[in-house]
């Protein structure tokens, strides 16, 4: 809903563009309506799908409510699943602003978990605030590094980042498998690192749920990303590189450096998703035995739905987190297969991706009305 927000930030409010005011409002309304319509239509399709498969849509809707808002704990748990999605959504959106497609969120997530967990259990004797800060930085740095490698390859060797980031995902996955199996495993049968020390934990803020202060980190990151992109020189350069690298080069902007930098930051953001999961939720790094956990990939959808704008990303993460959270409860209460939720999520993405269609419908209608 915020695709053209960058053309409306405070600098522009001084335009002598007042005569445009009403049209702008309408444009903004349409901008916001597209994702909203997409969500509503997708939910309807989901409900129809549920009805067709012989389940009770009312019960499913109730489950969606109960899972996310039904209790203090539910609200907390919903936000627990929203938090990493904000980070990975920001990660994808940020890279996208620099014209890069970061599919490496999964790998960045994994290495960050690894780093945060090790920093969390291996470093001892630090006061709480310092230990948790060190662990967060370790995670962000590891994710950033994992993003910077394909970033550097792209910037200075022209290797396409999509291929590279995917490769880096697998390297991260197997590296984690290997390190856990051979070096980092806690005693016992489980493929998991030792638990992080209490000093490295992110504080819980809504017991009995596992909601932790990582949520504030995520919201803070969204604000920071916004300020960075639209209110600093670096953001200006990154966006210039993203929109038109040749013009950026012409203007004396170091294009390769900005590409690498953007991937570093994007990687750090995805890394923070993993970091807060370890420090706030899991308290240890579990070997991803089921393969990729999916936050990195979901981040792509979140960024797309959020129109690559931090505010949009937060809202989209809220939606996806809520849907994610609803899936098991819908199974438990209404026997709705988990694929239903995927259908809803996919429909949202599809509709948003196809928003040109919705847009043209609006236009057609207006034109017809004008005639």
């Amino acid at each position: 809903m915020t695709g053209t927000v960058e053309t409306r930030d405070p600098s522009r409010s001084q335009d002598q563009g007042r005569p445009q005011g009403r049209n702008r409002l309408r444009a903004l309304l349409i901008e916001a309506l597209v994702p909203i319509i997409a969500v509503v239509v997708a939910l309807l399709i989901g409900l129809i799908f549920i009805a067709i498969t012989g389940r009770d849509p009312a019960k499913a809707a109730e489950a969606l409510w109960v899972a996310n808002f039904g209790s203090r704990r539910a609200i907390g748990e919903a936000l627990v699943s929203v938090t990493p999605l904000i980070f990975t959504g920001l990660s994808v959106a940020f890279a996208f602003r620099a014209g890069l497609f970061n599919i490496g969120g999964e790998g960045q997530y994994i290495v960050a978990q690894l780093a945060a967990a090790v920093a969390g259990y291996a470093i001892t004797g630090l006061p709480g605030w310092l230990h948790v800060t060190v662990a967060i930085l370790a995670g962000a740095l590891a994710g950033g590094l994992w993003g910077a490698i394909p970033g550097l390859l792209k910037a200075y060797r022209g290797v396409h980042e999509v291929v590279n980031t995917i490769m880096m995902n697998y390297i991260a996955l197997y590296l984690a498998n290997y390190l856990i199996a051979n070096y980092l495993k806690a005693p016992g049968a489980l493929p998991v690192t030792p638990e992080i020390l209490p000093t490295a934990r992110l504080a819980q803020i809504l017991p009995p749920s596992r909601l932790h202060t990582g949520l504030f980190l995520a919201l803070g990151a969204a604000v920071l990303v916004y300020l960075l992109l639209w209110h600093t020189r670096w953001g200006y350069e990154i966006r210039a590189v993203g929109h038109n690298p040749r013009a950026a080069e012409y203007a004396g902007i170091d294009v390769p450096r900005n590409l690498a930098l953007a991937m570093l930051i994007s990687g750090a953001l995805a890394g923070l998703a993993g970091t807060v999961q370890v420090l706030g939720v899991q308290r240890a790094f579990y070997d991803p035995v089921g393969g990729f956990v999916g936050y990195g990939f979901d981040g792509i959808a979140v960024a797309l739905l959020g129109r690559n704008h931090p505010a949009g990303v937060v809202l989209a993460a809220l939606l996806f987190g809520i849907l994610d959270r609803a899936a098991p409860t819908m199974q438990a209460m209404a026997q709705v297969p988990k694929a239903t939720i995927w259908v809803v999520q996919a429909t949202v993405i599809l509709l948003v991706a196809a928003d040109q269609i919705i847009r043209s419908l609006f236009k057609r209608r207006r034109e017809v009305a004008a005639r």
Partner: protein
Amino acid sequence: MSRKWIAGIMAGLLAMAVLAGCGKSATDQQGGQSQQQSQQGSAEGEKKPFKAAMATDVGGINDQSFNASAWRGLQKLKEEIGAEVNYVESKRQEDYETNLATLADQGYNIVWGVGFLMTNAIGAVADQYPDTYFGLIDGEVQGKPNVVSVLFNEQEGSFLMGVFAAKTTKTGKVGFVGGMELPVIERFEAGFKAGVKAVNPNVQVITVYTGEFNDPEKGKAAALNIYGQGADVIFHASGKTGEGVIQAAKEQNKFAIGVDSDQNHLAPEHVISSMMKRVDVAVLTISKQAAEGNFPGGQTVVLGLKDNGVGWSDTTLWDKMPPDTKEVATKWAEAIKAGKVTVPSTRKELETWQVPEI
């Protein structure tokens, strides 16, 4: 202008969430209590059906493997005592705890966590729901009166699969595909290799760990690699990844041995047997005990050949194996059941393991 909008929308959503939360949370605690009371009441008074549910690990209910097996156990429970049964599939590690809690919240009397990865989650949730029974498959949580842990002697069943493989191979090479290098999977590997050695020490076992339980493509690649090296029978212990192994067997017209459930239907001509891990039996038996008020809380139940917890599947293709295979395998099985043979459960034990005379 846009920021106002966004702020407005966010504020609205937040307000909705908070209001809803407050409104419910006050009543919720009472509600929770009364629910528990009514449960107890119902157990004594009017007969409400017994409710049993399970949470799968990330493999999902259709893993053709032990999640599926556990679900068969619950369905059987429904048939036998009319229990209300349900399942929840987990997307991520982080979900285990909330999913188990969700089921407990829904008033299920017994909640199963399927897979050793659930160990910590079961431990945590069991404390929060002391009135709910929890069962853990493949993992061990000790000292909690409302938790029962179920382990299997997979090495014993795998040993018999090793016997089948060594008997069946014509090339003198067989394969093993594991999911990840975890203690559970090591039991499969060690048992299988011991079985092969028992029949024919000259048969070579090619071992590959794919690193994932959830990726049939990788399983297929691993299997093709092993068949490419001349092997003609592969035993897999790799969850959903193994579907790829079986697919490869079908394409290459070689043999595969399934795991956990009877996987013959995946390739009826090529899956010569499956190492049955009777998760279904365990789930059924213990759930029934719980329904009867005899929940073996705090115990760790270990199921081996002797308990019919492991063994070969009903659809074992004897006609694809040499005629004396069944006889030989039965002989070993009896010896194991009788305690005359101890099957190694780790690679280390395997190294020093000598084929005993039976």
